[in-house]
């Protein structure tokens, strides 16, 4: 039998000490961003500007500048919800000048023809166009504008958490910290496959030469879907 010596007690005591070291009540700060793509990264790049024509016209398609002043104001409020966050990475958003993004206001008949559903409240595409449904109330218009502009900034997926405005359903009407951090600390830290400033016409990857279809998000009364355009 092993004698009960000081050395043996030290060894045994060390073993027992391990019992007390195994747990911690502290919480680490997670970076639990939500996904921003299923494959390709789109964004505008840091230290740039995005000019929005919030009431654009496309005479070929019969889309005229027909939003009323309230709708335009609510839309601007929705877009500006991202403003402080975008300032952190040197991106400015303005509504005058040569537009990067065009916003069209459609009635329900036009929206049905455009999106294939009369329930679409807003649509954004990597062709740098946003389609808004006319005649909605302030809360809806503002939330739709914020959500669809989130897609336009490069979030071509959704959050897994209903507290985030980029959740596929409009549960929240304001940006969460996760919305902001996902954009600034995650998406805009990645090298884009497509810089949206340079996108014009078909999407062709500059490195691989691969041609892909444009992404389209459609926010309906039953949630938001992202798909690729058919042409």
């Amino acid at each position, binding site marked *: 039998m092993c004698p009960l010596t000081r050395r*043996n007690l030290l060894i045994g005591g060390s073993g027992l000490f391990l019992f007390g070291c195994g747990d*911690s009540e502290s919480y680490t700060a997670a970076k639990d961003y*939500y996904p*921003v793509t299923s494959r390709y990264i789109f964004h505008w790049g840091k230290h740039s500007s995005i000019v929005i024509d919030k009431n654009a016209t496309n005479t070929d398609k019969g889309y005229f500048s027909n939003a009323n002043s309230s709708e335009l104001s609510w839309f601007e409020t929705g877009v500006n919800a991202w403003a402080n966050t975008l300032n952190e990475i040197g991106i400015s958003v303005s509504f005058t000048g040569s537009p990067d993004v065009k916003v069209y206001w459609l009635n329900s008949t036009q929206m049905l023809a455009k999106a294939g559903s009369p329930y679409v409240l807003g649509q954004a595409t990597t062709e740098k166009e946003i389609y808004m449904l006319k005649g909605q109330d302030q809360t809806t218009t503002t939330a739709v504008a914020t959500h669809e502009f989130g897609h336009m900034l490069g979030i071509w997926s959704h959050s897994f958490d209903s507290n985030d405005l980029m959740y596929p*359903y409009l549960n929240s009407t304001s940006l969460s910290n996760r919305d902001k951090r996902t954009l600034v600390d*995650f998406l805009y830290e990645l090298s884009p496959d497509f810089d949206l400033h340079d996108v014009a016409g078909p999407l062709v990857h500059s490195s691989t030469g691969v041609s892909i279809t444009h992404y389209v998000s459609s926010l309906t009364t039953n*949630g938001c879907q992202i798909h690729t355009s058919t042409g």
Partner: protein
Amino acid sequence: MPLWVRLFCVDVYIYCKTFADYLLDIWHSLKNLMPPYSETMKYNFVCLLLASALLIVATDQAWGDSLWRYGYSTQELRSNEGYNKYLKDRYGAAGIRLDGYLVGVTFLRTSGTGIGLEYSSTSGRIRYQTLNGEKQENTLDLQTLLLLLSSYRGNWEWSVGGGVNNLSRTFYGYRSSYITTENIKDQLGTRTSETLGTTGILQGLYHVFNSRLQWSVGARYIIAQNEIDSSDIRPGHNAKSVQETQNFDLGGLALLTTLTYRF
């Protein structure tokens, strides 16, 4: 080389080869013949087969005493690559600690070697605060079944072993990088996922008290990797947030303390 070392080496070689053949046969049989069954069922089946094999071996030889063991194990996981790195980057979980108990039985030969079966259950958790300030907890539960070959020299016990493990992860998060209204229900909240893997160990124990009741302390080097598939309900994600298959390294150095009763 002393005679006992050579005998031990021969013993170890035979045991290892037989054990490896058993494992390979079992795995191939399960993979090829039992695809409709769940991973849990395969795991249970492997456990039964191993236990049966041990009993057969045990009753077919002239055995001496048997050692019945209960112990505590603690281990810190690496965080440098694969799924380990993903957990560190996403949850700030550097050095996740797995703690838990082990129980085992070893049948001794008169030559001072033994063959044993050990079951261990260790668990760890990742406590973190989300970007929205909520407190969340992800948990890891690892169950391992090992066949051990041991050598007893004075107060020292040296072992090699191999077996299977079942890792259960209960994680909050999401599955697919393509989240839509159609699949949001699959993404929501906390989900549990199980994966199977193999484990190998090298172990040294020092018997602080070495009579019929032994108190031992020691260390174990573990080699174990589980593959977390990209189709897992809580997979790892690459730098672009797209899900991908990653290896979860469950190995490393574990510290042990055990109580053993010798019949």
